[in-house]
């Protein structure tokens, strides 16, 4: 099929970007979206132009490195799907596809479709862990966790850190990302002791980092590849308020 692309080109974070038109013939429906971009890049390279820089790595939906706005939607039209898992069968012959990077002040563009998501690492660094050194761990089965709690913890822990939530949010809030990690630990006995500190530190870090504030539009969950629940955000709020009240 024939695909018309309007693709974002930007040299670096300090320059202005704009859309550039490209046309691809013979796109196969079985191709993944990123393979379509590979095809474009090969074409660009051969004609002496700079290929489009875009982020990707595992190409199986788990590393969280890929992620662009496709026709104005984070990771494209399919629900619970990363950009790399999207296939061209989701498009029709003659379609025009707009491809833009995730845009948020906290995610500056590095080049073209690549953005800097270091903010997420910083939020985790602020407290997204159980403070246990190698060697300190007690026997695994001495910390029983009920089946349901373990499953609930997993649901939150499944976040891949792609940033679609921030890109989708009208406030560019990182609440879903931050809360998923906080919430994971609230389901587990491990790290309970530092729960209040963790919550306050992570929330504060999120505030410091140019992310916006959550106003519960719930768009993040809809566009999240892992379907992380917005109730995690409520849980985070609960933990945060509790920590503040106890102080």
């Amino acid at each position, binding site marked *: 099929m024939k695909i018309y692309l*309007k693709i*974002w080109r930007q040299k670096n974070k300090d320059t202005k970007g704009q*859309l550039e038109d490209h046309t691809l013939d013979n796109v196969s429906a079985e191709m993944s979206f990123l393979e379509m971009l590979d095809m474009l890049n090969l074409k660009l390279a051969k004609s002496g132009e700079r290929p489009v820089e875009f982020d990707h790595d595992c190409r199986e939906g788990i590393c969280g490195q890929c992620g662009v*706005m496709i*026709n*104005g*939607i*984070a990771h494209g039209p399919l629900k619970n799907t990363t950009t790399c898992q999207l296939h061209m069968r989701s498009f029709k012959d003659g379609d025009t596809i*707009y491809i*833009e990077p995730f*845009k*948020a*002040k*906290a*995610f500056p563009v590095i080049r073209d479709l690549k953005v800097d998501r270091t903010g997420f690492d910083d939020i985790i660094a602020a407290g997204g862990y159980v403070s246990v050194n190698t060697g300190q761990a007690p026997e695994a089965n001495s910390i029983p966790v009920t089946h349901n709690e373990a499953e609930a913890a997993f649901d939150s822990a499944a976040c891949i850190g792609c940033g679609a939530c921030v890109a*989708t949010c*009208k*406030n*560019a*809030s990182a609440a879903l990302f931050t809360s998923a990690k906080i919430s994971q630990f609230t389901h587990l006995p491990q790290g309970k002791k530092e729960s209040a500190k963790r919550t306050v530190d992570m929330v504060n870090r999120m505030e410091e980092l*140019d*992310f*916006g*504030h*959550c*106003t*519960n*539009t*719930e*768009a*993040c969950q*809809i*566009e999240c590849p892992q379907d992380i629940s*917005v*109730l*995690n*955000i*409520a*849980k985070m*709020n*609960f*933990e*945060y*308020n*509790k920590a503040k009240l106890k102080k």
Partner: protein
Amino acid sequence: MALTGLFLCFFLIIHLLGNLQLLLPKEEAQLQYNLYSHFLSGNILIKIVSYVLYASILLHTIDAIYLSTKAKKASGETYVKDKRNRASKWYSRQMMLLGTIVFAFLVIHFKDFWYPYKFGSIETDINGNKDLYSLVVVSFQELWYVILYAVAILALGFHLLHGFFSAFRSVGLYHPYYTKIVKTIGIGFAVLMTFGYLIIPFYIFLKL
């Protein structure tokens, strides 16, 4: 945001209950409504509550301005093609706009009723209470005023539709079952308030 919002929700109920007296037969309504208004302005407890109310409105507004400035700053550049709206309700994204309409209305509302009642010279009824009733009824004779009022109330309705449940989330209600209940109550509340407040001007405009 959530706390002031919830307090304002509470006020809306009280205010509506009071105003529903306007729906009584004319003679009865006039006296009772004016008495009620007099009672509200005299009671020290109510006075405290009213200051909390003013403070809530102000804080809610300031907070809203702060949050939307922050959101604007955080969002960075806009998307050329933006279909993000498929993932959320329009009114949840337009809380600022809806709130601004409500706020603008409040200014008019205060100017038309609250200011004259408090500081202006106003006729009294046979009981010697200020005749707010007549002021209200006269205002609602004007079609444009009724329409203005209706637009504001609709904006308020949608504002509540999102605001009510959102406030509970922000406070930290995370239980899947109870959040569902609160969401349903929120819808009921928004609908009830909208209709409740809308009935009054239309009742007065059409019936008299």
